[in-house]
């Protein structure tokens, strides 16, 4: 009989903290909030450890919960009346700790101005390299909706890049 996979919490944190943190940061546009979301996601994982059946299950579970917790965090901020996008503008204007090219920084800045559903689809597509079906399973939406969000999001991002990033990108 095959032995049941025993998840190791610390190892899961090591392996996936960058993925969870990046998803949260790109979805919320706020580093501090992304750290809070990442902590919550892993603490929730700790409570659900007995139900995690395989490394793939852990990865998909973390992606799904990171996306939904990020959406919750954005909603809470909207309810509190914080003007998130003004904050994002401020934060993107500040020097970034990680080594990022100006193009990458500007692209992320433009991404943060897209509607939430389109941003989620693009982040999962281009950060996590997921197929539309996998994105649909992650965000719990129909595949057709995901494809539409990808198409519209990419079109909108391309249009914004045409205006703001013409000097950087050849493929616009």
């Amino acid at each position, binding site marked *: 009989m095959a032995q049941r996979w025993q998840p190791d919490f610390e190892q899961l944190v090591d392996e996936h*903290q960058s993925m969870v*943190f990046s998803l949260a940061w790109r979805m919320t546009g706020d580093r501090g909030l992304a750290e809070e979301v990442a902590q919550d996601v892993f603490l929730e994982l700790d409570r659900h450890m007995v139900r995690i059946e395989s490394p793939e299950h852990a990865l998909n579970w973390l992606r799904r919960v990171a996306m939904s917790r990020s959406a919750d965090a954005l909603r809470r901020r909207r309810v509190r009346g914080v003007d998130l996008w003004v904050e994002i503008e401020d934060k993107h204007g500040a020097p970034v700790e990680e080594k990022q*090219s100006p193009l990458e920084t500007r692209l992320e800045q433009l991404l943060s101005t897209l509607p939430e559903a389109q941003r989620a689809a693009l*982040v999962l597509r281009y950060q996590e390299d997921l197929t*539309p079906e996998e994105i649909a399973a992650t965000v719990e939406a129909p595949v057709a909706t995901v494809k*539409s969000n990808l198409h519209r999001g990419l079109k909108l991002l391309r249009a914004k890049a045409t205006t703001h990033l013409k000097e950087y*990108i050849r*493929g616009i």
Partner: protein
Amino acid sequence: MEFERFDQPEKSDEFERELRQAMERRPAPPSLKRRILQKRSARRTERHHTTMIWWQRVAASLLAGAVLAGGFGWRQMEERRKGEEAKQQLMTALRITNQVLNNMNRKLAEHDRGEK
């Protein structure tokens, strides 16, 4: 349909390649793991503490229930005992009354016979 190209990554254009490159995973802050493990440990301690308090409350409730049930049982036994005692006293009184009435009856009968 244009949507179909999302199923074929090889069809992505230069802009999408730039986007993919720009959206590589960012390294998590070095302190994130430590903070997660600290919070986890604090939550476990808190959960343990909450469980202990819960068990203490259950034990206290059980003890209080047992005391109440014991008190109620004792009271019922006491009432039954008092009832039995009262019954015995009544029976004794009735026996005495019966004896007295029998004696009076006998004396009256003797008195009637003496008059005849």
